[in-house]
């Protein structure tokens, strides 16, 4: 497991990561989300001891990365597709890694087979495609059979088959009881694979919750109802502090309460209901809403009005 304790990184006066405190737990896939420049990669680099935190700590299995005796057997990381020297073959790259941590070199052949690179083990990695580079990086991460895995944008450059493979791999790694931290900009990808979401913006923690909860918490997740007494019911619900939007007709969109609660309130008000249903936000909408105020490189003004969720908030 990974524990961040007040993790902070400043570059001069600019704060990249600001007092991040959270635990990333084993047995699930934790999605690490945030706009560009939010501090995701910096956080991962600090966990690996590549960058020094200005203050605070990043602990892996209770220790700072630099104090792990066999780091590759505790943490595997894929930071980008360029982890190997282009002049080295896939085998040399993995052998050097294995030797540095006293890992038996037969593991090299095992992980090469696992990621499907057996045919190109002797080829220099400069000839590798982006997808092959990703697979090689994943092979390196799995070399020490670690209990903690971190992937920074793992599906970049992979073909649809590769994407499905990575998705399945992360799922099975988590199911084996490992800690899996995945950063991605692809919300649809997260919706498919993540159990837990950590959302950061401008270096601070915005949300750390199970994915269903993040979606449920969105203002775009609402209860839709239709009633002949819509106007009276709208006043009644609004008086109880719920968010109510009407379309002028018989339809109301109610936020801030569960579907059960809305049904009970309608009953108490004596309103006839023709429809009562959930309208769930997509993860993308929930995420956009969460990070709307913390987009680092936001377009200053939209040239044309658009109706994306970002523009609404």
């Amino acid at each position, binding site marked *: 497991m990974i524990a961040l304790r007040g993790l902070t990184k400043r570059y001069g006066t600019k704060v990249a990561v600001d007092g991040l405190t959270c635990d990333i737990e*084993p047995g699930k896939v934790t999605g690490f989300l945030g706009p560009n420049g939010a501090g995701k990669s910096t956080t991962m680099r600090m966990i690996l001891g590549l*960058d020094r935190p200005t203050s605070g700590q990043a602990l892996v299995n209770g220790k700072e990365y630099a104090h792990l005796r066999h780091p*590759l057997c505790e943490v595997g990381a894929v930071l980008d597709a360029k982890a190997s020297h282009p*002049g080295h073959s896939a085998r040399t790259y993995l052998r*050097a890694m294995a030797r540095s941590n*006293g890992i038996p070199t037969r593991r090299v052949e095992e992980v090469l087979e696992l990621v499907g690179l057996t045919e190109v083990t002797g080829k220099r990695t400069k000839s590798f495609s982006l997808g092959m580079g990703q697979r090689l990086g994943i092979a390196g991460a799995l070399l020490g059979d670690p209990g903690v895995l971190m992937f920074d944008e793992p599906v970049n450059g992979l073909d649809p088959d590769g994407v499905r493979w990575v998705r399945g791999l992360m799922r099975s790694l988590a199911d084996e009881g490992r800690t899996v931290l995945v950063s991605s900009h692809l919300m649809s990808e997260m919706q498919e694979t993540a159990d837990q979401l950590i959302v950061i913006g401008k270096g601070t923690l915005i949300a750390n919750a199970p994915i269903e909860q993040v979606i449920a918490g969105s203002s775009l997740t609402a209860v839709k109802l239709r009633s002949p007494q819509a106007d009276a019911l709208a006043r009644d619900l609004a008086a109880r502090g719920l968010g109510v939007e009407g379309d002028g007709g018989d339809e109301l969109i109610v936020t801030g309460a569960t579907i059960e609660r809305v049904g009970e309130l309608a009953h108490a008000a004596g309103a006839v209901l023709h429809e009562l249903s959930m309208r769930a936000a997509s993860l993308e909408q929930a995420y956009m809403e969460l990070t709307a105020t913390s987009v680092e490189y936001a377009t200053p003004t939209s040239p044309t009005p658009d109706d994306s969720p970002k523009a609404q908030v």
Partner: protein
Amino acid sequence: MTTTPRASGVAPRGSGFVGAVAAEWTKLWGLRSTWLCLAATVVMAAGVAVLGIPRSPNGFEGDPPILDANSNIQAVMLLAQFAMVALAALPLTGEYATGAIRTTLTCVPRRATMLLAKVTVGGAVAALTGIVMGLLNMGVIAALYGPQYMEITAEGLGRGLLGAGFYLLTISLFVLGLGAILRSTAGAITTAIGVIVGIPLLSQIIGNETLTEISNYTPTQVSGVVLSGVTAMPYSLGSALLLLLGWAIVALAGGYAVLRYRDA
């Protein structure tokens, strides 16, 4: 949800410094540039050794001069060392250029261990190469000039073999340290060439006293005392050896400080 953290199924044996050295060794010989640099070193060393032979013994009137085992070694080193300068820089600066340094540091997160492993592997290869260059020089003298005209003394062997190995060792570590400071292959190599050739050359052209004084302490001038037994310098052989070591240690200390305090 609480799940018991999963332990690794791989049983690692050893690691730390020994593992780091094994990894550096594997990486060094897995690169084509290593073989190219060594081949270039040998070709240049042999070439200069051949050119350095005075004349064919038959061309002398009377007795030809006797050559020491270490004669020409300084000239042999002068050119060939530059291939070794590249070889010394690349294992670190090449990793910065390609991003492979992140893998290296996640495998061996302790900066001192990582740097010492590179010092050990690079230093061993450089020292051995220096000795091989000395042997090559002797071989050329014996083959082309005639073994009977080559004098083998303990001092000549010491300077020509051990001196050459020591000189190349310190130059390589100096460049490795520069690479750790500058994190750039071009930067490390040009700085090294500036110190090894630039300053002595400039002082010869300008003839400024201060510059000459500074130049006397550059590795090239110091190496004259070690390799050829030059006596015109204001220091002894022992001090010369320490001076060469000093260049390496200062650069490495600077490199370690940068590694320690600057993000990878």
